[in-house]
């Protein structure tokens, strides 16, 4: 039961590994980027779940609420930044894939290696 109680860590670990597998194993550059995106999203989940306090509310001052229990807002703020970084990486990665397609006519890793070898 102890292991099930930590289910959000399992989600994090499984998602991380699925993404990582796709990055390593898939020869298609777009699929690699999708894997990379999954990989990063898993880390976002790790941060967001750690900030949740059981029974805690949003950290906003409310009139009349005596000693309310707040969730930790900092991990969410951090991950907002990390999401922006992730989007920029994805945009740049896709941009490079478009350029690769223009230059090589393919987005399969082994095709590109084959063309470079000639």
């Amino acid at each position, binding site marked *: 039961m102890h292991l099930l109680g930590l289910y959000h860590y399992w989600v994090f670990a499984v998602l991380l590994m699925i993404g990582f597998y796709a990055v390593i194993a898939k020869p298609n550059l777009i699929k690699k980027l999708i894997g990379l995106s999954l990989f990063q999203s898993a*880390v976002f989940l790790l941060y967001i779940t750690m900030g949740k306090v059981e029974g805690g509310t949003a950290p906003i001052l409310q009139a009349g609420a005596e000693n309310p229990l707040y969730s930790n807002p900092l*991990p969410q703020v951090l991950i907002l930044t990390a999401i922006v970084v992730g989007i*920029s*990486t994805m945009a740049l990665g896709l941009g490079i894939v478009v350029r690769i397609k223009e230059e090589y006519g393919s987005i399969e890793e082994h095709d590109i290696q084959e063309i*470079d070898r000639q």
Partner: protein
Amino acid sequence: MIEWSHHLPALQVVVPMLSAPLVMLLRSRGLAWAAATTASLFSFAIAIALSLGVLDGETFNYRMGDWPAPYGIELGVDAFSALLLLLVTGASTLALLAARHSLDAEIEAERQPLFYTAWLLALAGLAGIPVSADAFNIFVFMEIAALASYVLISGGPDRRALPAVFKYLIMGTIGATFYLIGIGLIYLMTGTLNLADMELRIHAVADLKPILVAAGFITIGLALKAAVFPLHVWLPSAYTYAPNVVTVFLAACSTKVAIYLLLRFDFFVFQPNLVGHDVQFTYFLMPLAVLAILIGSGVALFERNLKRMLAYSSVAQVGYILLGASFVSLAGVTASVLHMFNHALAKGALFLAVTCLATRCSGLRLDSIAGAARHMPWTMGAFVVAGLSLIGIPGTAGFVSKWTLISAALAEGATGGALVAVIVLGSLMALIYIWRVVEAAYFKAPEKGVAPLREAPPMLLAVTWAAALANLYFGLVPSLPISLSSAAAEILLRHVP
């Protein structure tokens, strides 16, 4: 009256970061170049002012928005970060001064302002990592620097840069994400992101699993960024196909900044608190460092493309830097930090000389530079001086750091002797691959039907010689890098039991 010197750590990042959008607005490439170079010179001046302050015993701590640490973000400059700032801003300034002529051949005029914008962003990110004292802030700077350098590398005319940069993007992002997982786990256990605060709070939870896992993730993630063998596979192609001046800039400082962070994190946060961590650190890094030296130099021996040869040599040099750090001793860490500085000087000067060759020769293979010294004696002269420094001939900067590294290794007892043999073997291999270039340029007849070459443009040549002479100067008068790196080693080992 504002006290300017107090704001220097913040200005170090703010100047290049705010100049970047301004440069983008300038439509003329000459103006854009002038503005970017001025911004880079200005940050170099700030780095010099900070280093002089640090040498005088001043400490720089800056609270962003006047929020006290650990709640606010803190910036701090000590001897270690000052040395790195000198490297980053110095390399950027020299490369930009040399860039005009070389870039005109590689990048269309209308795209040049955008290129300089990316350059300044890379500079801001690389300079931000040493000044920041906040683990998450460092992640953001790391990604700014990385994204901007992907753009810089893929900016050249060679299409092979694109798959190379894609590989770099994938591996760099995995490295940065590993680092993010690591600091996430530490934050989970300690509730802080400030490095100094983390060091104090981690003690109570140091023997718990998440901290160990975090140490693993952070070490591997940063090792990826630092191109530690066998995680270096992104480096050779990225350096080879990037525009030449970009290679000068990135080869001199981007892996060094990652090593800086690896050392700072490990010696500040993990070494003082994790039981047995120093032994693991040594046993993990020392074999990798030895393999990097042997295999990196070995591959460089057989490379026929000049830039790829020097890139593999960089893999080997990262090995020397880590070897010193893996001793976890004052002498070893001093040698390691000193070699960061001296290798950046030597490799920067070498790649500048290669840039000179590239402006005149048809290619950068050993055959295409055959006989080049006859028509470009100054370029090849600078190459030889920087090459001697890379090998570690007495009188050059490279000798000073190899010598301190060897004396640190000798203090290690039995394994030390074997390590000295590895260092000497690595240097001999460096002698051979530098000699192959010298042989081609001085003693081979040029290919038939090739128009005679001319000496490189004067501005480029002047910058190349300035870098080459710096190798001689810091070889004969090494007091500045030695005092900074021994102060850095003392800071790093201050809390290590």
